[in-house]
């Protein structure tokens, strides 16, 4: 009897948390399939009819542009972060020199920095460089603020690569870059995928730099575009929910396809540190 009560309580709690975490998604999805009229008649009904017009109209209203911009900026920034962080992590993790530890600490201390402390100078600098309101203006800040966690994850991993391999290559006359490119980098695969996933998702969702550095709609990323949508069409709840769904689906899809990898990637350095 006690065991039964415990079981009921356990399932009850699990179900309550399921509703708490899942219901907002259900509401978003269900509302996105309604016409405005249906929404005002029965705002809480679930999937009475499936109507895809909101999706097409949202796309026509510019969401596709934001989408493309987000894809471009995310891929560019992630590529650069991985390249720069991997290059820097190699000597930081595998070479002995006096400035090693200070440099490492300088990089990883960036993890605790509030972005706001850099916002005004970055805004002014971007203006001076003539990059204001251009998509590439975001690359610098995105790469710079992704470096700390990336270097943290990669140095931890590269330290574990056995020295023997590197020594053998060096005896065969491989250069430092050769060792990095042909041994250390290929062997860092799991850490690299963690870095890619972590940074991709964070850059995909980034808001404040975009808010400060981008102004015209044709250069907006998804988060900024969604906010603009809300400002203009806040009455059109189903339309907005369709936009939110479309913005969320790519990340959810990646997650559903490779759950373990995404979870590991998002936990980033935290799982180890």
């Amino acid at each position, binding site marked *: 009897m006690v065991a039964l009560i415990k079981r009921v309580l356990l399932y009850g709690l699990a179900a309550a948390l399921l509703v708490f975490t899942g219901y907002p998604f259900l509401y978003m999805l269900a509302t996105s399939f309604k016409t405005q009229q249906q929404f005002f008649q029965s705002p809480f009904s679930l999937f009475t009819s499936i109507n895809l017009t909101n999706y097409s109209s949202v796309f026509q209203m510019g969401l596709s542009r934001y989408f493309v911009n987000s894809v471009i900026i995310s891929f560019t920034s992630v590529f650069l972060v991985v390249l720069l962080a991997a290059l820097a992590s190699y000597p930081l993790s595998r070479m002995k020199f006096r400035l090693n530890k200070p440099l490492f600490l300088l990089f990883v201390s960036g993890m*605790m920095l509030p972005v706001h402390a850099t916002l005004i100078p970055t805004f002014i600098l971007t203006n001076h460089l003539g990059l204001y309101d251009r998509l590439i203006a975001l690359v610098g800040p995105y790469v710079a603020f992704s470096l700390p966690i990336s270097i943290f994850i990669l140095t931890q991993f590269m330290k574990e690569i056995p020295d023997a391999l590197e020594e053998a290559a060096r005896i065969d006359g491989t250069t430092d870059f050769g060792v990095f490119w042909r041994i250390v980098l290929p062997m860092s695969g799991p850490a690299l995928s963690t870095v890619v996933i972590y940074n991709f998702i964070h850059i995909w969702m980034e808001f404040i730099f975009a808010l400060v550095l981008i102004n015209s709609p044709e250069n907006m990323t998804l988060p900024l575009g969604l906010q603009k949508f809300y400002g203009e069409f806040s009455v059109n709840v189903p339309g907005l929910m369709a936009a939110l769904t479309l913005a969320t689906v790519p990340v959810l899809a990646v997650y559903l396809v490779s759950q373990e990898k995404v979870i590991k990637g998002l936990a980033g350095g935290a799982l180890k540190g």
Partner: protein
Amino acid sequence: MSGNTQQAVQSVTGTGAQMTVVPARSSEYRTGRWRKVAVITSFILPALFVYVVYVMYPIVDTLIDSFFAWDGQSTMTFIGFKNYVHLLRDSIFWTALKNNVLVILASVCVQIPLGMVMALILLSPIRGRRIFGTVYFFPFLMSTVAIGLLWTYIFDPLNGPLNHLIRTVGIQNWQIQWLSDPRIAVYAVLLVVVWQYAPFYMILFKAAMVAIPEELYEAASLDGATAWQKFWRITVPLIMPTIVSSAILAIVGSLKSFDLFYIMTGGGPDHATELLGTYMYKAAFVDFNMGYASSIAFSMFLVAFIVTVVIQYLEFVRQRRGG
């Protein structure tokens, strides 16, 4: 200690250091040393350059700007510490700081325990664990802007599901103006903060709990320990390092929060939900009071810096005690 045939793997944490020393021929010593400097520089320089331009330099520049009166366009006027004096007397600044502390409290006292409960559920003998685990993680995959907008509608007093639920349960006069009542708005947003980040702590705790050897629980069962005792005597002590690092992540993360509050309330009504971040943003990019905004921004940096130093110190003390 030089020569390009020698490498050392050095552990930053100071444990498990291992070294391989291949003696360098003395004739190679000098060229080897310079070669090494050149190699290290060329590997680190690209990252360091970007980091200095977009992180280090802006922080120093923010500090300098904070001593000026400046609208971002015309010439800057040096005013010494006036911005900071003004800041200390600015009641909105204190409200914002208080709200940042509330975010920290919600993160540490609600979010982390909730994440722990979720992890416990996922590790309990329950049917459909996979589904629970998958859905519990969803909120963490949505962009903060999207979350903010979605919950703005969930909180909508007229058409939102939350007040609808309250109406259905039959307590008509409990219709809550979630985001426009200054006494309630901040807690409403905090609920969303918890919703968004609890799954993150869930996966940290789950990973830590899976690593606990099953034998410990079996031995405790033989001694007649209850589930409650097992949790407090085995699970909690063994996941203590994860609890500590979660708390650190939560505190540091809370100081940075901005997006949700900016989207859902914009710091309103009447600054009731202002954060240091939203206040700084408005001072800089709405009022163009760049000098004053810089003093807020630099205060944020200082708070984060102090918190980090204190945490590092406590961690240092804890490790020296061998705890």
